[in-house]
């Protein structure tokens, strides 16, 4: 078993309203940043998977992304492999 670290990038599908993206664009004026557009705001989830090999680790992540992290009606996702180094020590502590 090895530890693989992945990121799942979840973004609103093209055509789906993205009010957060609009809000970012709306504040560009205040910041005096020019030439920025096409802003889409989504989620990024990083996680570590213990698995026998990378392929099976990735399969777990794909499933997690499809079932939990993204809603296929409104969002699309992409899975990205990261350096295992990037793994934070531990985080979870909720039981049950």
């Amino acid at each position, binding site marked *: 078993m090895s530890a693989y670290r992945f990121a799942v990038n979840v973004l609103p599908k093209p055509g789906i309203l993205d*009010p957060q993206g609009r809000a970012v664009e709306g504040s560009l004026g205040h910041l005096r940043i020019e030439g920025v557009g096409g802003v889409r705001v989504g989620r990024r989830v990083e996680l570590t998977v213990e698995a026998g090999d990378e392929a099976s680790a990735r399969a777990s992540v794909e499933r997690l992304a499809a079932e939990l992290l993204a809603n296929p009606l409104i969002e699309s996702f992409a899975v990205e492999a990261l350096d295992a180094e990037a793994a934070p020590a531990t985080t979870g502590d909720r039981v049950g």
Partner: protein
Amino acid sequence: MTRIGVVVFPGSNCDRDTVRGIELAGGEAVPLWHEQASLDGVAAVVLPGGFAYGDYLRAGVIARFSPVMRSVAEFAAHGGLVLGICNGFQVLAEAGLVPGALLRNRGLRFLGRDVRIAPERLDTPFTSRLADRGPLRLPIAHGEGCYYADDATLDALERDGQVLFRYIGDNPNGSVRAIAGVINAAGNVGGLMPHPERAAEAALGSVDGMGILRSLVDAAASAARTPTARVVVGSAA
């Protein structure tokens, strides 16, 4: 008295209010813990408002995978009556039990205020006791209530009479076609963003929610009388 289940997820916070609303409407409310697979033989299930499992990722998404929701899905598939209110509506949408999705409010802010909604139909289990199609004044309290479905789906919903409620005047969250509530194609699963259970007593300012709650209790009572529903309930248990 007709027994109606009220699901309690960790993070549900309208479960007690919903229990009370059902009782005021003449039903017997039965709390259903999220980890139980049995629906305790209830005649209908309400998914109450709140922030199930914190609602952190996307409202309603984690709740969908709880043991009780697997049973609720099965119950619904066999024609069992299910109503989702606010977060409960979000859970139903995430679970695919009603069409569409609930996005963040267009204004990106949580909104707690009274809105007016009108029923599109009076022949559903959730609207049968409403006197007419006139507007009801009900509170909303949500951050992710912007109803969304693509145009083809929306057209189909309109055609098939699956739009349950629409906002009248103020569309608080930017819902497409001002949709405040929908039902599934079979007509036994419904969801809405406003809170009927918070408008069930004159001392608190409004009783406009009672019609919805009474409709549910009525429909549950007749479901409890029909043998098929009993079988369904038994199979889910």
